[in-house]
């Protein structure tokens, strides 16, 4: 036991003292902050107004495309050929041409610009023209816009989870986001830290120190020491990321706090109070159109009603369980090969279930209680990722218990299997190892 502790200590400190660890640990929160800052800055200073010239031969759309903070439109009374000629000197950023036959040929609108046309401008122009044509056609049919507005109802449903007779407001969007973030973190960390275990084992084997070490400790102790050491490195890194990001965000938040007052977009402020991964993810989603930004405050409120304690505890458990399950296999691969190039054939079968789990997770998000979700959250090779997707939606306790027991059984099994391969592999030099050979090692005596 004393020796395992020594090994853990060495594995931990040699990694934590590495420059790359320190740099990465500092860089990620700075990047998060930078990303958030960039988004914020873009939102604040998006007032770099672009001037767009419009030539409307049809005459339907004069002054109908309204300006916004990004674009101002100016209608020219010019021939299109003249305008095109004059365009480079005109100081305009783009030129929109609406031909006479727009009502018949809806695809005839043209936008000219020196460089590419921003997608946003294209959709703005198209949207305005569509709306106007719609209006014209409605008017022709005797319906006015206001009648139509009246007829439209804005439906937004509230999802309420019924549990223990209590009605709790929940948000399936919040559950999806949080579940996805947790699953994603587990997915990434299995790869990052699993690969670290594999490299560590390979380093010991190729540098030939392994035989010196295992004359003092059992191969199993060396393997477990490394796995636990790297797990602690992972936990340290995550903890530092969270703490540093929170610290940066609170400092950053105060610095620009004044500027924020009166800003219509409150979501940035709201998300600053969230755990950084959540906030960053939400920012991203909000930007990429995943979640409409006006929904964010709702999600955050609803997130408060999620089983936060269960999520945190089960995240830690599934993070460790998934990591232990896979890292021992990565370690076994490291012990079996002679160099990085040989790892490919053995790595693939290990990574397939992880990647599959991540793909299944996308389906499970839509149907968190279906049979696919159930079974894949029971199988230890996929459960760390899938169960984390399901838990924010609420999972019956017995399922969590069974899944946890299976996962514990799973990593005991893979660790046992890995140890059998490892103890033979680390002393096997200069031999091209095949799958058949590996399976033989498992049954070697002693």
């Amino acid at each position, binding site marked *: 036991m004393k020796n395992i502790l*020594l090994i853990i200590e060495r594995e931990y400190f040699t990694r934590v003292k590495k420059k790359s660890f320190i740099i990465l640990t500092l860089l990620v929160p700075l990047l998060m902050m930078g990303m958030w800052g960039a988004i914020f800055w873009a939102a604040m200073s998006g007032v770099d107004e672009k001037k767009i010239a419009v030539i409307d031969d049809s005459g339907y759309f004069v002054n109908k495309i309204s300006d916004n903070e990004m674009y101002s439109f100016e209608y020219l009374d010019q021939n299109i050929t003249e305008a095109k000629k004059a365009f480079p000197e005109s100081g305009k950023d783009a030129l929109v041409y609406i031909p006479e036959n727009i009502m018949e040929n809806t695809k005839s609108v043209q936008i000219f610009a020196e460089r590419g046309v921003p997608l946003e401008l294209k959709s703005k122009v198209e949207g305005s023209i569509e709306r106007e044509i719609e209006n014209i056609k409605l008017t022709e049919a005797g319906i006015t816009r206001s009648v139509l507005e009246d007829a439209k109802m804005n439906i937004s449903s509230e999802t309420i989870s019924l549990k223990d007779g209590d009605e709790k407001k929940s948000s399936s969007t919040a559950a999806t986001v949080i579940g996805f973030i947790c699953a994603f973190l587990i997915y990434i960390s299995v790869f990052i830290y699993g690969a670290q275990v594999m490299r560590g084992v390979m380093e010991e084997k190729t540098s030939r120190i392994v035989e010196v*070490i295992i004359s003092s400790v059992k191969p199993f102790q060396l393997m477990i020491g490394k796995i636990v050491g790297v797990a602690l490195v992972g936990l340290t890194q995550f903890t530092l990321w969270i703490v540093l990001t929170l610290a940066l965000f609170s400092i950053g938040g105060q610095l620009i706090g004044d500027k924020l007052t009166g800003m219509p977009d409150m979501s940035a402020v709201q998300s600053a109070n969230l755990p950084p991964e959540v906030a960053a993810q939400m920012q991203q989603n909000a930007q990429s159109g995943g979640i409409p930004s006006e929904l964010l405050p709702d999600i955050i409120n609803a997130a408060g009603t999620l089983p936060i304690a269960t999520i945190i505890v089960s995240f830690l458990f599934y993070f460790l369980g998934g990591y232990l399950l896979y890292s021992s296999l990565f370690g076994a691969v490291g012990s079996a090969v002679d160099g990085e190039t040989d790892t490919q054939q053995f790595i693939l079968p290990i990574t397939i279930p992880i990647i599959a789990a991540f793909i299944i997770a996308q389906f499970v998000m839509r149907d968190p209680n279906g049979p696919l979700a159930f079974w894949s959250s029971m199988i230890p090779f996929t459960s760390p990722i899938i169960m984390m997707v399901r838990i924010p939606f609420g999972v019956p306790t017995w399922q969590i218990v069974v899944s946890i027991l299976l996962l514990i059984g799973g990593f005991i099994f893979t660790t046992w299997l890995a140890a059998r391969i490892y103890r033979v592999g680390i002393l096997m030099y200069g031999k091209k190892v095949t799958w058949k050979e590996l399976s033989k090692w498992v049954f070697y005596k*002693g």
Partner: protein
Amino acid sequence: MDTILDIKHIVKNYANHLALDDVSITVPKGLIFGLLGPNGAGKTSLIRIVNQITAPDSGEIYFDGEKLAEKHIYQIGYLPEERGLYKKMKVGDLLLYLARLKGLTKTEAMDKLKEWFIRFDIKSWWEKPVEDLSKGMQQKIQFVATVLHQPKLIILDEPFSGFDPINANIIKDEILRLRDEGSTIIFSTHRMESVEELCDHVALINKSKKVLDGSKAELKEQFKTNSFNIEYEGKLDSKEGVFDLLNSNELSPNHFKGNVKVSDGVSMNDLIKSLIEQVELKAFNENIPSMNDIFITAVNQD
């Protein structure tokens, strides 16, 4: 004589070959014990079993009178043939780590390391990363790591490979010093001149079996060919029942050098008597087999 290691009837099978076939070896205390054998004979398998890296299929090992158990790891120092160090670690940190794995406390390890660093005059290496050292320097560090915890039994597999003659001599002197301080050294090598020079006792393994075992003197006695180198003047013929002239060369006119093999039961005096009857004897000495001869003869006989 006390024994430090008593290996009894060890059998070890790998998937497709028998590595050790009923090998029994007794290693006396306080000696340098040569474990010899051609490549692939099973030496490394045996050493790994003694180090409890692998387990034998059958057979028993007693260490200093007790059945070999996990605690004995701390009393054995092992320098494997395939050896290396953590390249990125600092020399001092690495040696402290290895010493602590062998059961020393940090302060004990520190004290002993100071001694060795002074003895080898390598104080400036403490803070250097291992990868900055030359191969020979790294070998020295490995040697220190092997013997630092003052093990009762030190197992050295090809300890001189990678050393220049000067450093090889330093290591040789250290090995002798360790023996004189009471450690037993098992020394596995192919270099017969160092066996000749260092080993008190030798065992030879060939094709998974022990074929020879004994003190150097015993083996030489056992392998002597009862032949003699002679130089003489005059004409010499074999004499039935006393000796055979195996060969002779004329060095200068009427001056010969040759080999004679004495017949069973004939004493050295009778041989000399018989020789001087025929020729003027100039030189006479017995052919003592070298360890190299013994090795080759034993392996070829097998």
